């Protein structure tokens, strides 16, 4: 009961139809996502986890935060969110390119932001 991991009768990858990776690798833990069109319904076959995820992204949030609030493993949340981007339910905001580094402008902005805090 007091464990940090909340187990489920459904194994994680049943929720993702056996896939261990997203359809596209643009959704990472720091990807910001938001609902694309609040009125667009999910198909009746959508899992509860997909519905929860879509509801969680009613406003702007990172994938990691949504996964943590819903207690979904990060990789599972990533696959489900990626599907929801593909189906036009979620929009992903820009992300630092894979294997890239933030550019100088971004780094300077981070530095300025931190200096305002100190």
């Amino acid at each position, binding site marked *: 009961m007091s464990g940090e991991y909340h187990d489920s009768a459904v194994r994680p990858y049943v929720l993702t139809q056996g896939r261990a990776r997203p359809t596209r690798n643009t959704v990472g*833990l*720091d990807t910001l996502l938001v609902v694309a069109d609040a009125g667009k319904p999910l198909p009746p076959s959508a899992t509860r986890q997909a519905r929860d995820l879509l509801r969680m992204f009613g406003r*702007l949030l*990172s994938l990691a935060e949504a996964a943590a609030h819903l207690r979904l*493993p990060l990789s599972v949340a990533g696959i489900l969110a990626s599907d929801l981007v593909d189906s036009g339910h979620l929009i992903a905001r820009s992300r*630092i390119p894979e294997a890239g580094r933030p550019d100088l402008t*971004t780094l300077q902005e*981070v*530095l*300025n932001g931190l200096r305002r805090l100190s």
Partner: protein
Amino acid sequence: MGSAGSADRYLPDTVQQAVKILVVGDFGVGKTTMIGAVSEIEPLRTEETMTQASVGVDDLAGLDGKTTTTVAMDFGRITLSPYTALYLFGTPGQRRFWDLWAGLGEGAVGALVLVDTRRIEGSFEVLDQLELRGDLPFAVAVNHFPDSTRHSPQALREALDLEPGTPIVNCDARSRSSSVDALIALVKHALATQKGPS
């Protein structure tokens, strides 16, 4: 679940990009303390499942020779400007978690390595690995515990065998301003690295 209203959890709609910094170190070195000190949200915990080829534990690992490890990561957030949010991910430093870094490090500003001077040897491996990778700017923050002896940065630099360009700062992970200063040292280093020599 936290009692804070769910309205508080969201980012301002003006935010266009997220950046991340890894806070790396062994268990108990103060990663979550530091993240909690600077985060604008209550630190959150997420779990990632790692599947890895098992080395030396084949007898226990089952027939496919792979083990699955669940890694818990604590993280926090600072909205730095109307456009940019910074995420801080606490990342375990031990060798068996290095596979995790490949994904986490992508697009990251860099890594802040937290060091406990009472257990300095716990930091050698992680520093070696970061130097070997060479693709992730990093700085060292020495977290001072009440019963830890103060060493000069120069003595610690030598003890940790750091490259000359690697910043090393003292910090108190419980203090917001001290932790912010350590993050600033890392970002300045990342900027200098990005600009290149000269």
